């Protein structure tokens, strides 16, 4: 067996295998979280009650920002968890809901049926959603006291994830 030739072959093939492993190991549909550690994009929206609400109103407070819609089935799964957390941490953390591609009426009906402890905002042209790089609902962002985006949770929030991220933004 010619070892020299074998080693050259292995060295030539290894980078290709590495690249293939990298390619197959990443989900091509997963949107990267580019806002990590960046300042949270500012917004100026209206609440479901018609009140103007901006990010600047919550300066110095940790924020959980949840994009959701009444037509989104997975959003129902995490709704109660978010409501319980909003009630439990009402003094320490701001819980904001952003209604995504939905009508105010449908959102209000949903909240009347399932309960609401959060400030709910309307984003009629999805400008805030695009500013945060949202690619679907539910999607939640955790912002610390310094106004930096610490974590993005695409999909349904699990209790352990919610509490571990809450801990981080409350400590920072």
């Amino acid at each position, binding site marked *: 067996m010619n070892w020299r030739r074998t080693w050259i072959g292995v060295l*030539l093939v290894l980078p290709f295998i590495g690249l293939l492993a990298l390619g197959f190991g990443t989900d091509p549909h997963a949107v990267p979280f580019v806002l990590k550690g960046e300042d949270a994009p500012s917004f100026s929206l209206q609440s479901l009650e018609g009140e103007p609400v901006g990010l600047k109103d919550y300066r110095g407070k940790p924020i959980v920002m949840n994009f959701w819609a009444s037509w989104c089935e997975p959003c129902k799964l995490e709704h109660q968890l978010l409501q319980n957390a909003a009630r439990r941490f009402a003094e320490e953390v701001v819980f904001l809901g952003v209604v995504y591609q939905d009508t105010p009426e449908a959102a209000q009906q949903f909240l009347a049926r399932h309960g609401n402890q959060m400030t709910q905002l309307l984003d009629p042209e999805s400008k805030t959603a695009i500013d945060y790089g*949202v690619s679907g609902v539910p999607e939640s962002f955790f912002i610390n006291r310094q106004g930096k985006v610490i974590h993005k949770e695409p999909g349904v929030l699990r209790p352990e994830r919610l509490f571990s991220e809450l801990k981080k933004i409350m400590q920072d």
Partner: protein
Amino acid sequence: MKEVKILMTMVVVLFLCVKAQGSSALSAEQKIKAESIGAVLRCPVCQGMPIADSPATMAVEMMDLVYEKVAAGQSEEEIINYFIGRYGEWVLLRPTTKGFNLFVWILPPIALLLACLLIVYRARRAKEKETGQEQDTLASKDSDDTIEAIRREVEI
């Protein structure tokens, strides 16, 4: 079946109306600029479709934002960088030729070149081997003749 066709037509008409509404305030040149930007930006909720061609609400809203930014006088680079800042380079349908992405552009020609070199090398080796074998055959034939001649002489 007929209902499905009617529904599909309605969706397409609605999509075109929404598209036309978003770009109505732009000049023809600005519209072309916005469409060309929309053609390179990936729709986040579709399967590899540009926002300019997708009827998805998210894509339509992203396209509206592109129209708005074009109308505000932003350059193509500024608008594309805005979307990269939100969705990363993932949002680009055509990867850039910077950093790690450079591999995507460089590796295929390198692989092709290496494959060509390997083929040429193997072909040469095969030819050399063939020539060597012919010479060996001739040499062995010569030696056979010599041995035969010696044997004849010895026998005499």
